[in-house]
């Protein structure tokens, strides 16, 4: 898997905007930069090898990093660009990625409920219908099973539809189409048909939305062979993953989170595409590896603040790729810290954490000093009452306690 990074010709040290700033509330992060600012186009492979595509005479080799991760400001890495990029909210980053891909490839179209004239229930597709027309941004009736099937059928002929579920939970109605047709048609047709669809939508526990609108479908879809699953968590990776998912020939399910849509951050002006199979190093550390994704990343970072004050040095990795897991990055981290904590929002039974625990235990058992701890949401339908809902998901205090226990 190759990923292209493009940077600006500048090799100065980090500016302060690259420093990792915490804010008390999860919604006002700044400076979650990734540091792949290089002066040339480099092909980075997911097996951590890289090869320069153009001559990058200005860069010293040790400044080039081999995966799409953010690292601490004081490690000698490539610098920030002279242009600071632009600020936007996560849903706008998704829209930017979508718009750029629709401009680039006329086969890309969007279908979903209220994506066209209404602009999208979370405004991800706002303005696209007026720009691209009704044939490329399609308002569907409330018929998930059939419009997902239609998207898959259209993909069989070469179109690249993006199917939006207004809430991920509604895609349960399309489970047959996603599992049997989307996941399996490439295999059962002996490779004749490709299904380059992107199925995306917001999921996760919101603010008192009730049980049926707070579902976490990543645990249900993870067994389906033939699909890829990614979860975005910041405006930067939202845009990059959206573009990567659209360009991918495999069917990709992109999990967004209802509560993260209004996250504001700075993203580069230049075009960038992230790798679908790579995890993101949010905060390097030494004592414990905390694996997380989507909204729980912010709970973890909040807990990390407390942990740092208490003297711990957690390494936080946003796994991003839910299927397949980036065991390379995770393994490297486990070999360094020897302790793993998984913080996830889905339920324990059959969840992503359960699979991840199994994968790490199978592959890195010798590197573990302690059993893996997995913090997940409670195996209950999400209640409406605010206090109960808070207790359903993992809170930063619980993460701090878990790390303390793990590091004893």
């Amino acid at each position: 898997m190759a990923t292209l990074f493009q940077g600006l010709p500048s090799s100065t040290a980090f500016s302060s905007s690259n420093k990792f700033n915490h804010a008390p509330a999860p919604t006002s992060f700044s400076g979650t930069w990734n540091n792949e600012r290089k002066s040339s186009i480099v092909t980075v492979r997911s097996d951590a090898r890289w090869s320069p595509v153009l001559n990058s005479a200005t860069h010293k080799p040790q400044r080039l990093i081999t995966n799409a991760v953010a690292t601490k400001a004081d490690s000698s890495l490539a610098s920030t660009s002279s242009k600071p990029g632009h600020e936007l909210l996560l849903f706008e980053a998704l829209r930017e990625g979508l718009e750029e891909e629709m401009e680039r490839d006329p086969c890309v179209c969007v279908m979903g409920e209220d994506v066209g004239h209404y602009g999208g229930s979370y405004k991800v597709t706002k303005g696209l219908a007026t720009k691209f027309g009704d044939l490329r941004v399609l308002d569907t009736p409330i018929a998930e099973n059939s419009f997902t099937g239609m998207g898959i059928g259209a993909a069989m002929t070469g179109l690249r539809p993006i199917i939006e579920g207004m809430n991920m939970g509604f895609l349960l109605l399309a489970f047959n189409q996603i599992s049997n047709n989307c996941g399996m048609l490439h295999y059962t047709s002996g490779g004749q048909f490709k299904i380059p669809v992107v199925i995306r939508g917001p999921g996760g526990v919101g603010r008192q939305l009730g049980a049926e609108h707070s579902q976490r479908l990543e645990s249900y879809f993870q067994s389906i062979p033939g699909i890829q699953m990614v979860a975005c968590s910041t405006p930067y990776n939202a845009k990059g993953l959206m573009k990567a998912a659209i360009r991918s020939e495999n069917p990709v399910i992109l999990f967004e989170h209802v509560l993260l849509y209004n996250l504001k951050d700075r993203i580069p002006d230049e075009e960038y595409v992230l790798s679908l199979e790579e995890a993101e190093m949010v905060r390097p550390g030494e004592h414990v590896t905390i694996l997380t994704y989507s909204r729980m990343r912010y709970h973890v970072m909040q807990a990390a603040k407390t942990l740092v004050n208490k003297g711990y040095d957690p390494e936080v990795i946003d796994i991003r790729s839910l299927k397949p897991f980036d065991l390379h990055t995770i393994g490297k981290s486990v070999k360094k810290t020897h302790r793993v904590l998984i913080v996830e929002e889905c339920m324990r039974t059959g969840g992503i954490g359960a699979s991840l625990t199994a994968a790490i235990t199978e592959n890195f058992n010798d590197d573990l000093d302690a059993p893996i701890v997995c913090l997940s949401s409670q195996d209950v339908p999400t209640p409406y009452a605010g206090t109960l809902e808070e207790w359903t998901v993992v809170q930063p205090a619980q993460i701090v306690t878990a790390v303390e226990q793990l590091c004893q």
Partner: protein
Amino acid sequence: MALSRSGSNLLKPISPFFSCAPSILSRSISSSNDSITVETSIPFTAHNCEPPSRSVTTSAAELRSFFRDMALMRRMEIAADSLYKAKLIRGFCHLYDGQEAVAVGMEAAITRKDCIITAYRDHCTFLSRGGNLVEVFAELMGRRAGMSNGKGGSMHFYRKEGGFYGGHGIVGAQVPLGCGLAFAQKYSKDENVTFAMYGDGAANQGQLFEALNIAALWDLPAILVCENNHYGMGTAEWRAAKSPAYYKRGDYVPGLKVDGMDAFAVKQACKFAKEHALKNGPIILEMDTYRYHGHSMSDPGSTYRTRDEISGVRQERDPIERIRKLLLSHEISTETELKDIEKEVRKEVDNAISKAKESDMPDPSELFTNVYVKGFGVEAYGADRKELRATLP
């Protein structure tokens, strides 16, 4: 009571055919390109549209090709029956014999750029879209020479170059896919249509109506074809559907009821439907047809219908017999010529089976190919996932 009710309906279409027979003997044919006019067995019944004419123009060459194609399909299905009983074909095997006229008539009306998608009774449709016998038998026997490399099986026949999109096991799921194909055709503005086929059992699926609504709303060139063989596995249509007038179920979408045992009626209806769909959006065709075998090879087919009914339909409405009578009455071929064609077809099928038997089973590494279009470099194999294999660039 129950069985006789359906039995009488199934035999009905025949009598008008015989009453029209004298008018077909227009002339004796010498050249195969002269056009012949044939009347369909019964007039079309229409819903919300003007039915097409009963007179279909054809030629001697087309008549001969219809006969040969249908004989080939019939022979192929019977051979598959024997192979299944010999345990060379496993799992599910749904045979199409009796319904050949639908596949052959449809193909005569359209081009390879039009798309066809159907359910699991797909062997003959695959053949009509340009597939070959060796691929069919190899796939049925799970060999590498099959069109899906042996990994699909009876229910997963596909042929991309022929515009044949399968081959689907889940009842009704292919109809939204078919409307998606029609959407893609509208998107690329290429003036082609999609025939999304389903059975009388699938006609009660909700996703069908969902897809039809969207197709009508967006004006898609989708033609929904209900192959009504009157039985949804073991349940007769009157026990499954409150209203078995499947061609009327579109409500605002026009529909046409066609005698599915008459290849010319099918051809005329599909031609009409294609013109309609390109101008006015979706249309439903109901093909009144019949399957001689049971639902699949594990179903004897006689517990929910009488053998008299089956043999009655075979005597009165068999699609191949109809063409044979036309060929003989127009003096295009003689009895012996037709028997020779059938012998030739039988030999062709036998040769294909032996050739297919020579093909290997897929290699174990094939288990992991084509799961993704682009794989991930390092994969963990083995039941314990400890066997790692990395593809080096």
